[in-house]
Structure formats: C-alpha cells, structure tokens
C-alpha cells in the first residue's frame, strides 16, 4: 500500500518528516519498505513557449527550437519528438542544476547553439514518463502561465510516498484513513476538521427518493448501497484526481471510474459504477452463480462461473462477480449519461474462494478477502456522491436503495494484569486507556479491568490478548526490558537421534567424504530409477501441485540427490566425487502420513587419494569402497555386520552387497547399476552406500561396559587353506569362529591366493588367528588341539584343505 504524505495530511494533523512518519509506522507493525520523494524543487526551471521547432540541419532525430523564455529568445536543440510550435514547456536555463545533478551549460550540438534544455516529467522527477517534453498548460490545466515564472510557482508542492507493507490482519491499513489513524496514534496527532466531517457523513436517501429495485439472495452479501445519478458527464479527471491516483500507481481512466478508485485507496471500500442504460430493469440482484453461467469481465475475458462465485445480475444477466470484477457489458463509457453506483460488503471467505477459483486478484478482491470495514460503506458512498456532484455540476440523484448490516458490537475485557503478565512490564488501566483511545477504541473502566469496545474496522481484535498487543504496540516494543535468562528448571539433552546422526556425520567426514544437502523433491523418473535402493517397500509420495517436473515427488531415499550431485560435479570437471548425506526418504505405506525414514547415503567415485603421484594412486574399487563403509559401520558400533551378495534394483549384480545386523538389513553397498547411472549421464564407476539410521541408534548411543585388556599377548597361528571357489570368505570365517569357541578371539584374512600351485577350481585363503585367553596364557598343547579342531572343521564344512607350506 502506497501512502502519499499530502493525502495523509488531508486526514490528520501531525508533526514529523516523512522519515519520522515511516519510523513510527514501522515500529507499530506497518513496515515501511521505502520512502520516495517526489517533485524535488526545481530552481532555475521556468515556464517558456516554443516559438518554432524545425528539423536540426545536421541531425535527423533532433529539432532546433526557438523558445521565448520570458526574458528573451533562445535557441535550443531538443531530441523529443513531441515538440511543436506553441507548446508551453519547462525550460532549464543555463546554470541550472537538474534534480539528477546534471548542470545545464550553453553548448553547440551538431554545430547549432543550444542555450538550455526543455524537460520531460522524468527529468523534473514528477513521474517516470520520458516519452516527450512536458506540455505544462495541459499538465496543469492552465493556459495563463506567465512566461519566465518559476514552474515551482505552479506545480503542487513536493510530496513523499511511503511504501507500506500492511499486515494480513489489518485490512484497515489498505486505505489512507486506516494508516492515518495509526500515524495519528503514534505521533499524537488529531483528525482534521474535513476528516471528521467526512467520517460522519451518510448518504442522503430520504423517503422521497424512488426506491431502486435491489434484491439480496445470499447471506454473504448482507449490505448493499445502490444509487442512480442522472445527467453525469463522463470525461477526463481533473488534475488533482489524476495526481492522487498517479501517486498510488493507478492510471487514470475516466472521472467516474477514477472516483471509485480514489475511494478504494482512501476508505479501503471497493465500489463499482455501472452504465445505467446497460443495466436491464434497471434492477440489481445478488445471488450465487449457477454452474456454467458465463460473464465477460472488465478485462475482456469470458469466465465460466460456479456456485463458488457470488454474482451480481441485472433483471436478466450477470453484470459482475461480487467483490472481484465487474462485467464488460455494463461498463461506464464515454457515452454514459446515467450511472448506477454500487457500494457493498461481501463476506471475506466467499470473495477469497471466488477470486481464487477465477485465478484473479484485484484491488477490490484483495480488500474484501482481508475484510472491508463493515461500518465505512455509508461514509464512503456519501463521499463518492459529493465528489461526483462536484465534478458533474448538472447531475441529479435518482433512485436509491440501501440495505445496511448491523455492525457487530464487540466489547472485550482487558485486565492490565494480563498485559503485564504477557508483556513483562506493569500497565495501569489509565495507560491502557490512553493507548487504546488514541486508536479510537471505546474504553470504560470496570473495577481493575477495562471494557473495550472494538471499532468496526478492527476485525483482528476478538480476544483479550489482541488488546494486549495493541497496548504493547502503543507503548512501544522498544520499552520492553530484557529479563534475566531463566530456564524454569528445563535443561537441554541431546536426543538419541541427534547423537546418532552426529556420529554418522563425523564418521563419514573422517573417511574424507563431504556432507551434501540435496533437495527432497525429485522428478518422477529420478524417483522411479532409484526406488527400493534403501530397501523401502512403499510407493512414491507425489505432489498434487508441483512447480516443475524436476520437483514432482518426494525422494524415496537419498540416492537420486547424490547422483545429481555426482553428475553435476563430474560435468564441472571434478576428477573425484566423495559425498554423503543424512536425511529422510519418504514412502507411502497407506497411513495418513508417509513414512519418513532417516538414512545415510554416500557415494565415492574417482581416485583413492586427493593426491598421490606414485603407485599408491588408483581408482577406488569395490574393496576400497567397502573398507570405507566397514570403517563407518565400526564407528557406528556395528560389531557383527554380515555381508552377502545382493542383486536388487539399481545395484550392479556381482559387485553389490546387502549388510545385515541382528537379523535385519541395515545397509546396502556396491556399484550403481549402469542403467541407473545412464539416467544422470554418468560415465564413471560410482560406489554407493546406503544405511538406515534408526536400527543403528541403539548401538551408537549405548553406554559400553568397560573391559580390562588381558595381561598376556595373544598367541597367533597362521593357517592357509585351499577351498572351492564357491566357498565365501564369510563361510570359512564363520566355521573358524564357531569351532574356535571362547579361545579364538579374532580371525584375520591376510591373503587370497589364486596363482600357480592352486588346485583347479580352488582359491587359497590365508587366515591368521590371534588367539587369546585370559590368564594364564594358552599352553602349547591347548593351541595344538585347537588348531587340529579348526583344520578338521574347515575340511568337513568348507571342503577345504590345509595348504602345506614350504
């Protein structure tokens, strides 16, 4: 909402500069985003007349003018296309400093002397118009301007316009009057006499008036004022009206329409003017639209209506969508001689739904849906009629109808003690009264409390705490002190989820992966390509109203986001990408809300080291990547992770694994399948790891029982076996562990051998077994017995043969 200070001062008498008024509004909750200063003073710029304007001899686009400056003839070169002989123009004489800082000098332009400058409205900072030189006589509506007189003698005084952000709950701030009331309260001003008169005005509908046929058939329209005015003259608005609308950023249309807009901006009351000749009956009827009913609105578009819209019709057909936009057919035009004014109140919710369904947001609908003051209609209508009769002196009031609504009387109790409790400083009932009265609330004392009558325009005040806010605002938020910091016995704890995720993060950072944050919204194609890669069972969660196909569905897991990141970084020339993310995957399982599974996913592609210029540098392979994931699982306190081959969707078969702990799958690791990578145009091996965090939370946050290390070093034995190729390392390890009992502490693979001397179809697995027993240390005899038992077990359960060593 724009607020010109000249307009504000028509309503209230207050002291203060534009900046002080802006500050006052901001600190009362009407945020002023900017202050524009208009019509800077123009010393040195005078009224002049163009005597002749001819083409410049040496330039096609320039004109050479002879100008009467009031104190002699000047030669001036001008580039504006509209300069003609006889025009009255603003002339910047030599030596003038323009509002933008430019100093005017006498100079030769393409060989011709130029002794000043003719100005456009933009050069005078009167508006943004730079299409031509300002025709002063037309602009000011005067032909008697003395040549040579300063233009500032004839222009309206400089003004400032505040750009005010009006809170959603303060529709009264959508009009100059509402903002004026706030300024008045903030700076201790008073209504002007004109304001008092206007606010108390009511339309003069008398018993002698002919009643206008008006029927209201919908509860969402409880109040409607209709008035016919005969003998109007539709034409251009006077300068003062044009200037007011221009300051609001509204273009001038015609005197009748401009007046409705004036009232909209001033009173916050939308109005509409119909051409009476085009209103069948003439009569007006307000009802719900019927399904499929059609109306061409003022913007020229034909609209198909539903019962959502409240419709205004004449005796036969629709003439407007109530509160949103009028119809094109009954629009006021240059030939209009009789006008029908509408000034009505419509229910906010109805207008909001109606406008939304039509995809329209008009100045009227914006005000109606927030809530127009139900008590302002009468004064606004009367002001319109008064101004209309001033602009069209021959006009006469005709038939009228006035259905008024009983404005709800809202009276609230305010306890100063409640204000003190919420705001944190003491308030007396007298102080509360001063603050509320300044905003035109009605206040009476009731014991310690106040009975507060809420004005009709304050739709936001329905509870005692709403009045507490008024008191706090009025008193100034800057006067609220800082209380000592107190927690009331509350203390902070880190939740298990925070602790788990913190550990997950740190354990990944330590592996040299950086943390990624990807969008949760992905394309359907991306979601489908990766669905199930974190073992999720449910379906996709799609958006009903996506903004783009790239963001149409919630990610089922974190894979798509990381692959996006891999693709992006490879495209940007990164040789290696190492990223991980902690976040939620979303699956629909039929409940009201989708399941949100917290997980960690990580990708690695490229080289083992950030830098190595020797043989240690290599591309990350399966075992290198698996080592990262194993180390991470160890940090997450997963002791017994079982790895088995996995060939689920999205994973490359023969190079992927599923990880289980305590009987349930907790993670997946391996290479991403080629077809999935192709969807992101990735042409590199990408190693991926996905782990569910919830199953890890318990282990990651458990308090361990300390164990004292043994006093004796462990006994180590190296055993090497030939086993069939199909027997996995895990199988041999399990066999050894199972038969080693309490004496076998750890099994460690130290080589896989498939070179010369390996029997056909077998591989050599060399396992070292550091054994450990508490105290005393194992005897040689015990170790020999254990070793024999293990060799037998591997032979019988894994078909393995002890490899004789040379």
């Amino acid at each position, binding site marked *: 909402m724009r607020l010109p200070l000249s307009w504000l001062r028509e309503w209230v008498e207050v002291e203060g500069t534009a900046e002080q008024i802006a500050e006052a509004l901001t600190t009362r909750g009407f945020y002023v985003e900017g202050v524009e200063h208009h019509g800077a003073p123009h010393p040195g710029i005078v009224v002049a007349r163009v005597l002749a304007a001819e083409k410049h001899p040496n330039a096609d686009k320039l004109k050479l003018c002879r100008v009467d400056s009031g104190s002699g003839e000047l030669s001036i070169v001008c580039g504006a296309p509209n300069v003609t002989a006889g025009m009255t123009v603003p002339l910047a004489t030599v030596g003038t400093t323009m509002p933008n800082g430019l100093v005017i000098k006498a100079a030769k332009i393409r060989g011709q002397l130029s002794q000043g400058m003719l100005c456009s409205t933009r050069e005078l900072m009167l508006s943004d118009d730079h299409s031509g030189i300002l025709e002063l006589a037309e602009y000011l509506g005067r032909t008697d301007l003395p040549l040579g007189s300063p233009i500032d003698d004839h222009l309206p005084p400089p003004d400032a316009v505040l750009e005010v952000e009006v809170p959603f709950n303060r529709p009264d701030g959508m009009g100059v009057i509402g903002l004026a009331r706030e300024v008045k309260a903030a700076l201790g001003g008073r209504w002007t006499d004109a304001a008092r008169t206007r606010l108390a005005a009511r339309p003069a509908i008398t018993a002698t008036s002919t009643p206008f046929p008006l029927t209201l058939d919908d509860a969402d329209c409880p109040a409607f004022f209709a008035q016919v005015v005969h003998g109007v003259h539709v034409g251009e608005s006077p300068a003062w009206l044009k200037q007011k609308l221009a300051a609001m950023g509204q273009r001038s249309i015609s005197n009748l329409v401009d007046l409705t807009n004036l009232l909209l901006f001033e009173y916050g009351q939308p109005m509409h003017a119909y051409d009476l000749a085009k209103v069948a009956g003439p009569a007006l009827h307000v009802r719900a639209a019927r399904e499929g009913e059609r109306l061409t609105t003022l913007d020229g578009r034909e609209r198909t209506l539903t019962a959502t819209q409240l419709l205004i019709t004449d005796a036969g057909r629709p003439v407007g969508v109530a509160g949103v936009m009028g119809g094109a057919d009954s629009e006021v035009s240059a030939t209009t001689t009789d006008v029908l004014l509408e000034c009505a109140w419509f229910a906010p919710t109805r207008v909001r739904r109606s406008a939304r369904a039509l995809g329209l947001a008009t100045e009227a609908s914006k005000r109606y849906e927030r809530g127009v003051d139900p008590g302002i209609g009468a004064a606004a209508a009367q002001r319109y009629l008064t101004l209309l009769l001033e602009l069209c002196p021959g006009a006469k009031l005709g038939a009228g109808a006035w259905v008024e609504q009983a404005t709800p009387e809202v009276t609230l109790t305010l306890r100063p003690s409640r204000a003190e409790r919420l705001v*944190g400083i003491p308030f007396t009932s007298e102080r509360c009264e001063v603050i509320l009265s300044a905003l035109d609330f009605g206040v009476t004392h009731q014991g310690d409390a106040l009975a507060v009558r809420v004005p009709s325009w304050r739709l936001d005040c329905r509870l005692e705490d709403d009045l507490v806010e008024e008191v706090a605002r009025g008193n100034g938020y800057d006067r609220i002190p800082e209380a000592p910091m107190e927690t009331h016995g509350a203390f902070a704890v880190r939740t298990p989820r925070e602790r788990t995720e913190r550990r997950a993060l740190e354990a990944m950072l330590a592996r040299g992966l950086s943390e990624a944050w990807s969008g949760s919204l992905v394309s359907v194609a991306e979601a489908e390509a990766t669905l199930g890669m974190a073992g999720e069972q449910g379906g996709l969660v799609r958006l009903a109203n996506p903004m783009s196909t790239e963001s149409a569905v919630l990610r089922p897991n974190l894979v798509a986001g990381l692959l996006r990141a891999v693709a992006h*970084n490879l495209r940007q020339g990164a040789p290696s990408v190492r990223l991980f993310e902690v976040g939620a995957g979303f699956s629909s399982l039929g409940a009201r*809300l989708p399941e949100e599974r917290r997980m960690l996913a990580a990708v690695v592609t490229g080289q083992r080291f*950030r830098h190595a210029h020797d043989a240690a540098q290599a591309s990350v392979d399966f075992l290198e990547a698996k080592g990262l994931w194993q180390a991470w699982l160890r940090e997450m306190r997963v002791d017994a992770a079982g790895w088995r081959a996995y060939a689920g969707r999205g994973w490359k078969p023969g190079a992927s694994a599923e990880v289980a702990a305590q009987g349930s799958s907790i993670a997946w690791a391996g290479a991403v399948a080629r077809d999935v990578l192709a969807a992101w145009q990735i042409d590199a091996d990408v190693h991926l790891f996905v782990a569910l965090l919830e199953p890890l939370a318990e282990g990651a946050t458990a308090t361990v029982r300390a164990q004292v290390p043994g006093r004796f070093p462990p006994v180590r034995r190296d055993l090497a076996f030939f086993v069939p190729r199909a027997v996995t390392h895990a199988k041999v390890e399990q066999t050894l562990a199972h038969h080693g009992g309490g004496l076998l502490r750890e099994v460690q693979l130290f080589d896989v051998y498939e070179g010369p001397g390996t029997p056909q179809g077998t591989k050599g697995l060399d396992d070292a077994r550091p054994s450990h027993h508490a105290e005393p240390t194992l005897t040689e005899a015990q170790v020999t017995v254990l070793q024999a038992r293990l060799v037998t077990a591997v032979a019988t359960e894994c078909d393995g043969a002890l490899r004789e060593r040379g």
Partner: protein
Amino acid sequence: MSDVRSLLAARLDPAWGRAEPSGLLADWPERLAALSAASAEVASITADYVSAIAAAGDAAALQSVRNAALSRESGAFTEALALVPSLSVDEKRVWGKALNLGRKAVEDADKARRAQLEAAREADHALDVTLPGREPWTGRPHVLAQVRDDLLDLFHGLGFSVYTSPEVELDEYNFGKLNFAADHPARDAHDTYFVEGASDVVLRTHTSPGWVRAMEERKPPLRLVFPGRVYRAEAVDASHMDQFHQIDGLFVDRDVSMADLKATLNTFARAIYRADLPTRIIPIYFPFVEPGVQMDVQCVRCDGRGHVPGEEGARRCPVCKGTQWVEVLGAGMVHPNVFRAVGIDPEEYTGFAFGMGLERIAMGRYGIPEIRLFLENDLRFLGQF
C-alpha cells in the same frame, strides 16, 4: 729432541691439501697460542695436520690423515709420545705438554670434520620435502549444517533441547492448530505443496507444527528448538527456493513474558552476529502468536547508514534497501488459540516462540549471493566452509 721433531716432520705428507684450521675449530687461535708456548715446532706440525683434516674431501682422506697423526700403531703423535719417557725431566714436561695439546687439537679437528662430512653426505641423499605428500581426502560438513550446529550449540547452552517432527504434515498441524483460519489470506504467505490424493496432507511450510506436536505430547515447562526443512510452492530463482531450513524455538511455562523473549532473542543476536550490534523488535502479524514480534539487526553492509559509497556518490544500500535494518527472525507470545488447540490453559501458562531461517543467516555471514547454491552440492562451493 730433534729426533721427535724430525719424526713428526717426516710424517707430514706434502700432498695433503691445506685449509684454514680455524674453519674447523672455532677456538683454534687460543689452542695455537697455548701450543706455541709449549713448542713452536709441535704447534706448526699440529697446524699442518689440522689444515690437512680441514681439507680432507671425504671419509677415506680424513681417515688417512687421522691414521698418519693418531693411529695406535704408526701415528706421528703416538710414536712421538712413546719417545717422551726417554727424555730428561725438563724435556719430558715441555714435550709431553706440547704433544698432548697437539694430539687433542688433531682429535677434535678430526671429530668436527667427520661431522661436517657426514652432514654433507646426508644432504646429498635428502628427500625433496617440497614434493606433495600422499594426501588422503578430507570431508567438510555442509555450510548449512555448520550454521545449524552453531545455533543448536547456542540454544543447547540456553537449555533448549531438540524436538523433531515430520516434514510431511497434516494440514491441521501445519495450519489449523496454529490458528490459521480456513480460507484466511494469511495462508497466502505460505504457498503450500499438497500431497497427491490427500487434500489434508501438506509439505510443512514452517517448522512450527513441531510446537503443536510437542505441546500435545509433553507437559510444561517446555524449552525446545525445532530444526528442519520446510517447503513452499515457489518458483526457484537466485533468491527463492521451494525448500529451505528453519529453526523454531518454544518456551512454555507459567509467567513467561515478552521480556523473557527479548532476552533470548538478544542473546541469540549477540552470539550469532556481534555482541554490540544494535537490534530492535517491532510488531508483526503471524496467526500463531499474539503479540507478534519481528527482530531486526542493524545492517552490517552499510553500518546502519542506509547508503553505501558508489561510483557517483552514495547509493542506497543493496542489503537493507535503505531501511538501515535487516530482518532476522519472527517471534511472539504463543497465541491463546494455539494453547487451546493443544489442551493447555492459556490462563495458567504463557509462552514465547521464535523462528529463523538458516539460509538467511548463512548468506549474510558468508556473503553467499544465491540461495540455489545450498542444495546444488558443488564441491567447489562446499569445500570453502
């Protein structure tokens, strides 16, 4: 005596190089003076040996000089000293002293030269320590995680615990119980993503639904923070994302006031911005608080002047748009309707709440010009923080 002298002289190989003895023994002038006082001849011979040692180019040459002078079998000093017992008492004293001083000088010179040669040998085999090492990869937490953790550390210190709630929420929790009336224009500020097939399920537009869930689940005093991702159905550009991150805070107990709120907000500003940065709180409307509060901090780009130096004189500050202040968060006292919606008696309890955006803080702190960068995961961007 001439026997001893000639013996020494004979052992001196003229082929040995010469170098300045003082290059090897820092105290050589003193030693030579002491020697000369005992025997000028021995001093001269010693000087020759020490010079030869200083000139020895490698370990073998040095060993050869050493052997000539000191070898147990045939060293010049060894043999000369062996003759000393046969001299007269006076000669014994003079020659014995001179020879011992000379031998000591030669031994010390040998030791010093040996160390020099060893150091030179090691220098020849030195690694080029400027070669880059075999450097493992390092990982960085995301810049928003760093900002979030700074905030959580602060609020943790102030006694606030984390509470998490779903990102996909019921309309009732995102709006209804937070006092957004159905069809109220306040909902327009929250462009909402809806889930297909369920008109009452939305992607939360703020982290405030967490308060509702926490208050339904727990009893006051509640001192909680609610970090998380939120969604708005907005077209993405340099300053708008359809996903971003907030932290809400909530404190509910008997007799919590705006003065308590102000203390918390100012503590936040001092810790996260600057201890002496001016702040202000002004009224603002949110449906779920009453009274509502916006906190601004003074613009750090223009130091609260509203304008910055430009090429053609001062121009309007691009950060605060000339207003001298930058909005950092919204806050207020929990609305009585919100309390009623969760079954808390607003006459018994009061509370404050606040909410802030991580991106806004991160962009201000690090001078990040585009909000899109946060979710792009460009390693060159992430690696800076």
